[in-house]
């Protein structure tokens, strides 16, 4: 049974939200992913992932302060919910189980 639906990109975003803890808003998340993973992230992809996860309940958000640099628009900070954390852990656990279940042969084949 599919308990948590969490895509690959979503997972990265969710993890980053966790890493940044209370400083996780659009630009910061984007910068963090870009520096750690060395991959380009478009605002569109990031934002839609965040909103999707918000409707799924993995993150929650609240409005922050507005700055002149942002054209007077407020930042929106995202926080990981415990449900989101459970989803991440479930993902990790599933992977770990899969790793463990993998017979050595596969590894050998890979080396041969």
């Amino acid at each position: 049974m599919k308990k948590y639906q969490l895509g690959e990109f979503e997972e990265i975003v969710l993890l980053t939200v966790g890493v940044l803890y209370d400083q996780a808003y659009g630009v910061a998340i984007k910068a963090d992913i870009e520096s750690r993973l060395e991959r380009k992230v478009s605002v569109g992809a990031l934002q839609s992932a965040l909103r999707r996860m918000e409707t799924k309940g993995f993150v929650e958000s609240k409005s922050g302060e507005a700055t002149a640099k942002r054209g007077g628009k407020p930042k929106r900070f995202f926080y990981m919910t415990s449900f989101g954390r459970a989803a991440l852990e479930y993902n990790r656990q599933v992977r770990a189980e899969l790793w463990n279940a993998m017979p050595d042969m596969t590894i050998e084949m890979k080396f041969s």
Partner: protein
Amino acid sequence: MIKKIADRILKSYCHPDYYPDIQGDLDELYFDRKNNSTVAQFRHLFEVIKLFRPALIRPFYKNSLYNSTGMFKNYFKISFRNLIKQKAFSIINIIGLAVGLSAFLMINQYVMFEKSYDRFFSDSDRLYRLTTDQVLDGAIGTRDAMSFAPSGPALVDRVPEVINSTLTYQFNELVLRVEDRSVKETKAIAADSNYFDLFDYKILAGGDPNQMLKEPFSIVLTESRAKAYFGDQDPVGQAIKILSGFNQSFKVTGVMQDVPEQTHYKFDVLVSISSFQEDVDEDGWNSFNYYTYLKLAPNTDIDELRGKFPRMFELSGEEESDSNLEFNLQKVEDIHLYSDFTYEPEAHGSANTVLFLNIISILILIIAWVNYINLSTAKAIDRAREVGVRKAIGANKMQLIIQFLFESFMLNLLAVVLAIVMAQLSYSYFNHLVGKEVIENIWLNQLFLVKIFAFAFIGAIVSGLYPAFVLSSFRTVVVLKGRFRNSAKGILLRKGLVVVQFSVSLVLLAATFVVNRQVNFMQSVDKGIDMDFVVGMSRPGYSSGNREAMRIKFEQFKQRLLDHHAVENVGFTNSLPGGDLSDISSTTGEVQIIGKTDLMEGTTYMQWCDDGYFDAVGIRMIAGRNFDAEMVSDSAAIIVNESFLKRLGVNDYESVLNEKIQFGENDDGHKYRLIGIMKDYNRTSLKNRVEPTSTFYNTYANRVVVRLTPSSYQEGLAHLEETYKSYFPNTPLEYDFLDERFNNLFQEDQQFGNVIATFSLLAVIVASLGLFGLSAFMAINRAKEVGIRKVLGATIPQILSIFYREFIILIALSSLIGIPLVYYTMDGWLNNYAYRVDFPWIFVGASLLVVGASAFITVGYQTIRVAVKNPSETLRCE
């Protein structure tokens, strides 16, 4: 710039909840890039485009302003199903509304066009025409559109509110010679150098407009004339020779825009009035042949100004007792529709016609709206159950009203589409009907399109509101129990509206007949002259230098024409029959028959002709004799018409023959011996009485009438053309038959007749469509009653008579309303004509018959459809 566009795009599609922070993020990123280069802006735009994702865009239904979109969808569906289900009802309504809307708006365009005359000058609201009233014993007599030449400048000096004036003169025609071509200009005027200050036409070439008409022998051309004369050459500085009157070369000093249709004073060429300054000076305060326009200071109170306006004798230096003429001011914007003075520069429009058309158009629209009200309340019974169910499941009254209004909107919208198509297909016919290029292209006419939607909107509310209230006020329990009947009040209203429709149809039909009758009367009535196969034309005038030579030439020309067997008579005159009101000279001075009558004031019209004129147009003498070329004394002879003598109170015509007639109170002025009395004849439109006219002997008059032999008139025409060309090679020949000239005079009335005939027909068609639908519903509603009657032994004629009884009452009621209305309006219209038909009651009867017959046929058809049904069918289900 690009960033701004990008931001706007984002705002337009982004989900409103997410927008602020996403926009904030984007701004921050953009700001971090720290330059405003185009590259950065494009990157920004690219980000915005990539943001267009399902998760982030604005939802379509949720979050919109209405949360009852679902309900509207349902209304739409139900309305649509109803339209489809009741095809006859929908088609009748849509066609009716479309006809109503397009007719209404096309007439509206015409009305606006007529009302837009002379409003395009920047100061048009301050422009006034100075006109001259003849005041006899304190009462205003003849009102003349012209004025004395010196009055304009004198008024500017004397009255501070009058800040500028211009003096203009309208030529009958000018014959121009451009390079080696001769052209005849029928719309030519002269004006002084102030002209363009008052009438600020756009000047296309020639520099300072205030200088262009300063020098004598200057000429200003309209754009199209300049093109016609000089093609692609620069017209300014070119020479044009004016043959008629001047025989002088003029210099083109400017080119102006073409004079639009919407002005009462149209012209194609404009010459400086200083070119004939001596004539103007000579006319002075003696004769008024000029149009003077005044410009008033801003914010002048016109009534106050009229109150303190100088009397004419104060300026002209006459004794007060000598003068019977007074100034009058006339707003230029009002001239086209409201002025009916003598010597107008062109045939004017009529405010009454415009009003009349306006009323017809509103009536057509109302008829169409009434159809909707009638039909939708009549078929309320079909919708009653739906209303009951809706109410039972919780719809409130407001929602139901909105629903039915929505339906009315849909119907009107469909009608708009059809109306636009109709208007597009028929506008050229409409233009033809009113005789003016009023509508050019519906698709490009934004105002028309805006209006059509606006009126559809108004119509939807006006005609939709009552049915919406009726339908929404059904009581749930009554309706659902199936004991529902149309309310007595509703039936009464419907009958009232039908009466309105009948009356309107009746009035319009009768009006059509009356107008038609009058126009036919004017064309066929004996005008006192015999015009069949009589040709009228003008020939060149003479100048003082070649007077005698030209006289001989004219005489030879006449003899040469008469030599041909197909030419019966040739006459010279200065005023062709069938011309405008202003095609004749007049004097406002006093007149008397010496020893027989007292001096009497009043306008006397004057014409000049030779001895051939009376025979050529068949004017009958009732006493005395014609002019005689052999008698030298006839140069001081005069022939008058009956009206002239009637005004002087002379009844015994023989007794005044050979007496002397004196013009003016000065007894050593000219006196003329009365040698003949001619029968009255209509010189111009039958709107006007035959004018008191005196005719003088003159062989120089520059109009020619030629009577041709009917059997060989074509040979005569050929001979005429050939002879003319050999005698006057420089002036183009233009002739027309006199009866055609008269028919042109009636064209306006005929047009009016055609317009109201067309629109009356439309109104009647729309009304009968409505009646058709209504009687169908009524017949079906009473199907059971009919069935029972048949079972009990009623015959079809008996059933018909029951249905007819109601309609007879309605028709009787509408004739009670309609007949007085038609008598009142149309008798008033007929009174515009000095020679009119008696009020044609028989045609009112005929219109009543037409309305009655159409009602009987439609009602009868619907009733019989129900009545022939087998009662077992109609009574089967209960």
